[in-house]
């Protein structure tokens, strides 16, 4: 009985090891080169030249005014909208390359993005997004709409954005803007 169980356990361990190796190899491959074949055709970004990258516009803050300032960045194309959106926000979490201010607290990490069929993107940030935020109405408004605009501006299939923190719905970020509803983009906040 005992030896039987040990044999089964051993087999399971070997299987697990094989799976881990496959997973690691696929993960490594995915980072260096894209796999267009594995993606559903209707959500991949098609282009005649089959280019590997695409441009996205991110929205940062300026020392000069209370508006959102565009900055162009490149991300990998041909992945799903969700993957592209994830890359876009990960770029937004980095510092501006043109000297703008970041609208997102420095330690913030993007945990996950989900996209519903109706075009609502659920964006889930780490708790630093809330803990490190300066509060204040103006700061909250600009943080939220830099995220919402950065997604809706670049992805037609994203109509609204719902913000989560540590996987949970929050009332507000710092006591002002309501987070219990999805946001439409606010293009009037963009500097011209």
């Amino acid at each position: 009985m005992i030896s039987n169980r040990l044999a089964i356990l051993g087999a399971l361990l070997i299987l697990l090891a094989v799976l881990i190796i496959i997973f690691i190899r696929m993960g490594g491959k995915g980072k260096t080169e894209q796999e267009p074949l594995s993606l559903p055709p209707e959500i991949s970004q098609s282009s005649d030249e089959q280019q590997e990258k695409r441009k996205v516009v991110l929205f940062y803050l300026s020392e000069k005014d209370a508006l959102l300032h565009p900055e162009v960045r490149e991300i990998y194309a041909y992945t799903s909208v969700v993957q592209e959106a994830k890359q876009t926000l990960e770029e937004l979490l980095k510092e501006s390359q043109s000297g703008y201010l970041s609208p997102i607290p420095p330690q913030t990490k993007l945990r996950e993005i989900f996209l519903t069929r109706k075009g609502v993107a659920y964006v889930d940030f780490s708790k630093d997004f809330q803990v490190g935020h300066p509060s204040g109405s103006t700061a909250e408004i600009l943080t939220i709409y830099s995220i919402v605009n950065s997604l809706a501006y670049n992805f037609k299939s994203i109509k609204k954005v719902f913000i989560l923190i540590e996987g949970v719905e929050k009332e507000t970020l710092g006591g002002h803007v309501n987070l219990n509803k999805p946001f439409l983009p606010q293009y009037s906040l963009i500097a011209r």
Partner: protein
Amino acid sequence: MIKVAHSDFSYDYFNTEDSPRLIIDLSQAEEEMREIRNIVIDPGHGGLEVGAKGKFGALEKDITLPISLKLKAIIERNLALRVFLTRDKDTNISLDNRVAIANNNKADLFISIHANSSFRKNATGSETFFLSMDATDEEARRLAYLENSSAALEDRIEGENEDEIKMILWDMAQAAYLQQSSQLAEFIQRELNLLLSTHNRGIKQAPFRVLTGVACPAVLVEVAFLSNPVEEKELLTERFQSRVAQAIYRGLLNFIKLYGQE
């Protein structure tokens, strides 16, 4: 304390800090107002929820309360209105409870008072917000028909208010009052511009949680920026706080003159 025993006059007084002078401002008493009876003032934040923080350590919650108390005193001194505060000390009160306090006390006007904060240090000025709603919002559309007759909404609140303890919290009650709220915001912002020397940031709309469920004209005033060291110091002075209260009072008064009668 001074008592002016004449019902035809209303008054207000200021202490000047620089010179030993007391200014008493007498004016004609306001005509009776039938529509507007209850005003709810909401001092932003409180308790553990401190709000924005200044470089020198000022906390938003400690600035919004004295301004609110001063505003309450000015209104009560000059107008025959009932004034409620959502908090009168340093306590935690949820945003939904603030809304409930307003609706349970049958607020006819709701003013939430805050001090602002930004990522950039040189952001300055005052602004007055009213609620923004998505035009495509289904809930807003559901309530949009009420925009023309807010009486319909009041009737429904009346009906539900039989039980006094019952909390009335409407998800989107503010939808029926957006026009009046924008007018109130305009009046208050105009007076802030006149009485404070702060930069005018104008009236704006934002989806603020505390405004969403309030069933009367409602605004959120951002007095000045705690994230700006110069304005942080200003916000801490009694003189500045009194001027803010005075400005908001004057804005209220203009609104009441326009909507409060007939």
